[in-house]
């Protein structure tokens, strides 16, 4: 997964980047399976790898011109970027080395077979409001994307 991530940010050809991202997303789905979260893994494959990446590939084909591939690919602010990333990385390392003891090892519980049912109970029970808001958000996003990509309104 890390190799996929590194390939995403370093490839010059955006189509290669998109493929590396697909590999990363599929690896992420298998990590979800290792974490005993099969429903989230299934949703990840359907939505992310099967939907969002198709969208990305479509747009790359529409806007990718050869001129952009021959330009310098890294920003003029790459120094600031590296400094920010190093600071963030240092923060993470500090947190993890200081706090190794606060994350208990998980005992291996029995693999339950009703992960989907439990998620559904939570989703339609406790998080019902968030569910409705998410559907409204998707509606707004659909309308926004259609309006923005039209030739004339």
């Amino acid at each position: 997964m890390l190799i996929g991530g590194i390939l995403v940010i370093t490839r010059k050809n955006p189509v290669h980047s998109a493929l590396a991202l697909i590999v990363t997303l599929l690896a992420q789905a298998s990590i979800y399976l290792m974490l005993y979260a099969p429903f989230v893994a299934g949703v990840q494959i359907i939505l992310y790898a099967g939907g969002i990446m198709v969208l990305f590939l479509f747009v790359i084909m529409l806007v990718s011109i050869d001129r952009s591939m021959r330009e310098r690919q890294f920003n003029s602010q790459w120094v600031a970027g590296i400094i920010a990333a190093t600071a963030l990385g240092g923060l993470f390392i500090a947190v993890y080395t200081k706090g190794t003891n606060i994350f208990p090892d998980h005992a291996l519980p029995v693999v339950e077979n009703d992960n989907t049912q439990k998620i559904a109970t939570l989703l339609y029970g406790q998080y019902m409001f968030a569910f409705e808001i998410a559907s409204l958000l998707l509606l707004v996003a659909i309308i926004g994307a259609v309006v923005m990509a039209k030739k004339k309104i």
Partner: protein
Amino acid sequence: MGQLVQYVQSYLKSNQTPGAAGNIFWMLVYIMLVFVGLSVAVIAMNWLERKILAHMQVRLGPMRVGPHGLLQPIADALKLLLKEDIMPTEADSAIFWCAPFIVVLAAFTVFVVVPFGPTHAITDMNIGILFMLGVSSLSVLGIVMAGWASNSHYPLIGALRSSAQMVSYEVAMGLAVVSAVLMTSLNASGTGTLSMIGIVEAQQAQGEWFIFKFFPLGLIAFFIFAVAMVAETNRAPFDLAEAESELTAGFHTEYSGFRWSLFFLAEYSAMIAVSSIAVTLWLGGWLRPFPHWLGGATWDQIFSFVPGVTFLFLSAITFFNVVRMPKHPYFRIQTIGLAGFGAVLGFIGLALFVPGVRVRIQDIFWFTAKVAGFMYLYIWYRGTFPRYRFDQLMKMGWKVLLPMGLGVLLLTACVGLFQQNLWHR
């Protein structure tokens, strides 16, 4: 040797799929069996499609290669393997190599959860149907990559059209699938399941196939799925993206030889995969017809003879054709070949009468028979319907099938809730 027999017997007594039991050896055996079976099915589909299309168009189809063209798929495979592998110069070579591989991978991985029987699946995932939908949506990526990597107009337009069509009809497919899964929750405990084997067992427990449930809701949901699955696999009448007269073979124009055969293999496997989803969800998977009207032990016995009888019938047809072959010395080898084929079919039919084999093969036979029915429907559609124009196609996907799917889902939920409240008053 005795230990091997004991191992085989211990497997035959288990009542779980190899994946659930964690048995790696049997899982590998099943994977090999499914892979070989699928390859044989694709080869048979190739021959069947050409013959059936030909007979629908009042001509004979391939007759020369083997007796009645039976060896034609082998000739096709040899030709494709020996053809030169052309790659356009400006094409992106890494993506050009990967694209058919991804499509084939997506089409074949789906068969991990297809249930051929109550314990005859490679594994029974808890999220079976979700997994199948997700992996079959990965083939869109392969098609887009194939069109892009060819670096020429026709494949690019073909790939974009084809993937837009597939993505649109995935939504309608998903809605139809959800309304079928909803019907699995109409039992005493009120919980449904997403696992493929669980769905068929729910149909068994509720006593009717989901296509007949809440008539006509199950039928409409099945109809939506049947239309969407034909559009999803880019087959007629929705094959604008790859039709020869429109776009010179669309996204696989620049592929030749072995790579093209990979696309072709993936297309037929995807057809079989979505047909098996339809069979599992609506037509009762491996259940024999009329499980409740003609129930009871004697009817079970009678129905268990059907596989053997079918194969004997097929071998009888073959022998009839042997007799009808021209009696010219040039045709001697073909006649002998056809007679041999008929003998093999008859032998299989006789072997299926053995009691032990009969009971275990019966589930696989009914499942395969239903999927074969769907394959015949696919070929029938190709021979009968004119092609949809692309804008008509997209209009139908979004403006007709999507509202119908939503309506069926809402009505199924309401009727199901009503029925549950009637039971648990």
